[in-house]
């Protein structure tokens, strides 16, 4: 009953459609079609890029048809999240909120409800935007990615997963199947702060994840991780800033100093969402704020 197509402003790009029922089948398809194929899960980044003609895959492999890849579970040592877990499932998961609230908090800040209901954690990471909102907190918590190919499986630390804008260590026949987040040590609290270009539905101009671990007396900072998003070709650890605070007594001017160093470590570009100098300034603000919030939480939590 199709009438004249008056509605569609953007020309739908054409492709050959494949459905994967297992991760193995996915790897087979990828092996066969290599870079002529793209995986589609939520499609919230992929379809937009295809409509803008930024990428033109000849084959789309639907992986949402793979059952049991959307789990969120805990095995006593790590939180394990299946690659197809949607951002809203992660946002609302009691398990994630309890064990690693900085992750559910990150998911909450992505896009809109509609986007979060479709988009997956695997997609957010594998799309590898330098601004990927799931990356900073997952890296700060020492998260790892399980990658599967026809040759077998390997586990890669998320800190080493990203190699450039839109580029990861994934080989052409590999699929990310699971994210593993090891148990945070006791007295650990974290926060993800994002400055979007508008108030909602937007990419991060700057994203900062701060995770602090205090000693049992809660006077000294045993460990701190500061991960910056959207201000470098990939998410980056602000190791210099971390070094200022790690092992130290909780102190006001240390936070200021660390925030300043984090800003220097950022390597942002100027684009439509903000200039490089603005972004550096915001790194300072969000690192400062993030450290204060994480420390307040860690100090206050009984």
């Amino acid at each position, binding site marked *: 009953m199709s009438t004249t197509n008056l509605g*569609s402003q953007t020309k739908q790009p054409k492709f050959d459609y494949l459905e994967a029922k297992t991760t193995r089948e996915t790897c087979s398809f990828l092996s066969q079609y290599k870079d002529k194929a793209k995986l589609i899960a939520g499609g919230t980044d992929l379809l937009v890029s295809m409509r803008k003609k930024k990428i033109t895959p000849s084959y789309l492999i639907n992986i949402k048809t793979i059952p049991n890849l959307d789990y969120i579970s805990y095995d006593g040592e790590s939180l394990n999240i299946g690659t197809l877990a949607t951002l809203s499932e992660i946002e609302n998961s009691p398990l994630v909120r309890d064990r690693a609230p900085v992750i559910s908090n990150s998911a909450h800040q992505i*896009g*809109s409800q*509609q*986007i979060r209901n479709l988009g997956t954690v695997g997609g957010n990471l594998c799309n590898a935007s330098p601004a990927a909102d799931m990356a900073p907190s997952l890296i700060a918590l020492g998260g790892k990615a399980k990658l599967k190919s026809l040759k077998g499986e390997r586990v890669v630390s998320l800190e080493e997963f990203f190699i450039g804008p839109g580029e990861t260590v994934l080989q052409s026949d590999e699929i990310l199947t699971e994210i593993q987040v090891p148990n945070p040590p006791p007295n650990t609290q974290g926060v993800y702060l994002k400055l979007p270009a508008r108030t909602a539905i937007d990419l991060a101009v700057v994203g900062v994840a701060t995770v602090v671990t205090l000693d049992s007396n809660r006077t000294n900072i045993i460990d701190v991780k500061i991960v910056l998003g959207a201000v470098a070709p990939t998410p980056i650890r602000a190791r210099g800033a971390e070094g200022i605070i790690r092992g130290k007594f909780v102190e006001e001017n240390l936070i200021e100093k660390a925030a300043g160093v984090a800003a220097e470590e950022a390597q942002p570009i100027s684009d439509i969402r903000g200039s490089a100098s603005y972004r550096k300034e915001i790194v300072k603000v969000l690192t400062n704020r993030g450290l204060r919030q994480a420390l307040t939480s860690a100090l206050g939590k009984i």
Partner: protein
Amino acid sequence: MKQEIKLKINGEAYEVYVEPWKSLLEILREDLDFTGVKSGCEEGECGACTVLVDGKAVNSCLMLGPQAQGKEILTIEGLKVEGGLHPLQQAFVDHFAVQCGFCTPGMILSAKALLDKIPHPTEEEVRVALSGNLCRCTGYIKIVEAVLAASNKERSK
């Protein structure tokens, strides 16, 4: 190569045979005449195309037709109740929350998804739930009022 897609829309079973690159939005509007679902940005930014899929609000422009296989879809057309408007629709009318009406189907469906999950939300929760639906006419105040009123009406019953 066309795909056969079987899905449920507003409680009824449908079967379409379409190219796999057609979005759910296109299928709903063009193949099945559910023109209450609006095409806005086709980028997942405006929410005009919002429908509920298995109870969850999604941008139908970002779902491929084959991904709707076996799903239960609710469009604005499905909110009809016996003898009149759905309480949410009535609240939008009563509170002047409709001007040009283009965002309205998406707004109401996002609101429905919220109220089905959280029957008595706070204003903040309403705003977060609707933050994926843009409106160029109203300034949102009346829309938020309408959703809160619809939720309170249920409470006072």
